[in-house]
């Protein structure tokens, strides 16, 4: 459903935001993009969403060459950018009606039904006639999702969809994305490893514009099996381990440092083998 090959985006000065990145997302899958700030996630999403032309590579959405014929590809696309807004004086009903019409709901009755169903589905029906400026952050986020989902796109591209939501709202968006993914391809970018673990059939870790890991979360974790060791150390001991081993994660727990090391054998007797998590994979790939 989404196939991108050899995507390269370079900025003036030679900095490569993306370097030979390829993505395949079949129908029925949620594909997660992970990476630190500046890794190129949002650039990749914008390329997939036909908003930015890559310097090299190809993008196919729902079988359509999105670089040669972006207008046709857009008919199959729903996009939720990381940062967005709406004209503050307009209402959710007016906005969604506008987007629905331009997505192809030309018949008024059909459009009315689709808009109402979407607003109800995202708990926005009660505020349909309020100006956008009077909506809370969570409501605006749901309105953005409603805009992305109207017209049931085959490909849904979402950039940090749960960033402004409270935990309950976040779970509902997760459920919605999982449900939608049953019949379409979803590409999701996030900073939250837990989101990827909860939602994604496959994930890609980007670092400095390059793909450093790609695969199913379970498979990525399995690749690290027997190589992850953890220990709780004092600050003094931690300094010694840091100098001699590949420490991928460490954080303070009750005054001591919980340290995770990737190695073929445990650094010393204080370290015990641990079941790898996606956090370990992410830390190992980007450290």
């Amino acid at each position: 459903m989404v196939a991108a090959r050899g995507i390269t985006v370079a900025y003036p000065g030679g900095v490569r935001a993306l370097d030979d990145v390829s993505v395949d997302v079949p129908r029925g899958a949620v594909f997660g993009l992970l990476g630190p700030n500046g890794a190129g996630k949002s650039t990749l999403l914008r390329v997939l969403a036909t908003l930015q032309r890559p310097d090299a590579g190809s993008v196919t959405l729902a079988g359509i060459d999105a670089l040669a014929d972006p207008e046709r590809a857009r008919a199959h696309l729903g996009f939720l950018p990381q940062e967005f807004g709406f004209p503050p004086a307009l209402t959710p009903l007016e906005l969604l009606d506008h987007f629905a019409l331009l997505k192809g709901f030309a018949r008024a009755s059909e459009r009315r039904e689709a808009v109402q169903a979407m607003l109800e589905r995202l708990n926005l029906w009660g505020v349909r006639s309020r100006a956008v400026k009077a909506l809370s952050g969570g409501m605006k986020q749901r309105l953005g999702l409603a805009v992305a989902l109207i017209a049931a796109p085959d490909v849904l591209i979402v950039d940090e969809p749960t960033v402004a939501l409270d935990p309950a709202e976040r779970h509902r968006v997760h459920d919605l994305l999982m449900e939608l993914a049953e019949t379409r391809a979803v590409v999701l970018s996030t900073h939250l490893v837990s989101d990827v673990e909860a939602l994604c059939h496959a994930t890609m870790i980007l670092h400095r514009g390059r793909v450093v890991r790609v695969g199913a979360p379970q498979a990525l974790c399995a690749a690290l099996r027997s190589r992850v060791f953890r220990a709780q150390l004092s600050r003094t001991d931690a300094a010694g381990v840091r100098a001699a081993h590949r420490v991928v994660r460490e954080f303070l727990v009750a005054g001591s440092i919980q340290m995770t090391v990737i190695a073929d054998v445990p650094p010393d007797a204080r370290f015990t083998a641990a079941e790898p998590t996606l956090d370990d994979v992410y830390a190992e790939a980007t450290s």
Partner: protein
Amino acid sequence: MHASLQRVRSVVRLELLTQRREPLTALYMLVFFLLAAAFAAAGPVELVRDRGSVPPDAAWSLMLASTALTAFGQVITTMVAATVVLRDRADRVDELLRVTLLRPREYLTGKLFAALGLLCLIYTAIPAGLVCGAVIGGGKAWHAVLAVAPPFLIVVLPTMLAVGAIQFGLGALSGRLWVIVGQGLLLIWLWSSAVNAVPHAGGDLLVLLDPFASAPLLRASATWTDAQRTTLAMPVTAALVFNRVLWLLLGTAVAGIAVVRAPNAARAGRRGAGSADDVLELPTSAATSTGASPPLASPTLTLPAWRAVLAWAVHVTRWMVRDTGWRVLAVLGTLNVAVHVALDVTRGMAPAALSTLVVSALEQHARLFLILLATIYAGEVVWREREDRSAAFLDVLPTHDGDAVIGRIVGVVAAQGTLVMMMGAAVTATGMLFSGSPVAPGILVGGLFATALVPFIAWMLVALAVHVVVQQKVAAHLVCIVGWVVVVRIQGSVTVGAGSADMAWGVVVVLPAAMFIAWLGWVRGERGSLADRWREARRRASSPFALGR
């Protein structure tokens, strides 16, 4: 006290550093300098009307050129005041600042001094340009300096300080751009009314209302012969001094109130925003849970091009006519022309000429508002979606580029056309009410079309094309303003597109050309490099018939 001063100084320093790195500061100075120098060097730039045989480097000419540039510079004063006072809020930096040791009053005081300091720097380009131009034109440098110094110290500097302080104060109190812009227009209206009152009896009091001090100078030198204009220095009359003192006091008062009161307003605003969220948040339901909702509806029809164009037009018209700034400008513009018609009629215009008077009022008094609205909202069509961050949603819609651009243009033309109709209706009603005579519909409709609607739309589309090509909002606005001044000067009058020949040119050449450029250069998605934009324009140009699909 010392710590407080240090914090104020830090705010001033940071603001000036920010502005120094803004290319616009240099651009503003350049505009002032070039206009002033070109005028004083006796080039084609004519800043002083009815100059006769008085040379452009005479004290009288330089004095009036200073006042003209100061009045023109209100666009720049407005932009600087708005940027300084509103940018932190727009960038969401104000909340970070509020949790520092910086007190709101220190913050506003620092910002005020920074704004005024920056304006001082920018406005020094006026005397510098005038002196430079006078020297280039063959005049003596010392003579030019002596001639330029009084108007700079008595007219330009106090005006800049007073108007800058008023705009800053109102911006700080309201937190709204439209208040600053609306107030700028109000000042221009006061200036225009005071200048119009100069030849009339009782004008002595009215000239006090001129914030730019043109009227007291014009009144004092109204009876001067060309010889006197060429030789006499600037007349410093009691009316001029009172005018200056009045406006400086007003500026100090507004800025003082803002510094004292605005922090309270800001705190109240924060509380209000929090409670609104609490009230509006709905109880959540299980409607989005897995399996509980019906499948999403898919569209069954392909959208015809005309329907897409209409949808875009409705969207643009809708947000424009609900925009507070547009509404304020529209109401001010309508009131302005209506008041002028009322004044003209009561001054004894023959009822038989009412239709001509109404058309003439539209041409004379609506022009400034129409040009400002055309320039501002042509820019808004290009920038608003990016600024309110809805552009990404709109850019991925499956509509043809041509439909989207034409639709937006139709939308903005419809909204602006509504405004022209409002003005037409207001002047007609006022004229009929005050004269008791009917208006000839043929003359009125023809005049409205020829003197207001077509030039207005032509100018708006030109401004739109400029914004699309320049791709930098403020720079494009400046290009438009400078372009307008150049057009006015080339035409040799202050009327853009008033004649039928202009109208014909507008319809035949300007409108299609501007629309074509806007369509060719319209940026969808990331802006890309110049080469990318050129490639995209060529791609669109290679299939022009896809425009209407």
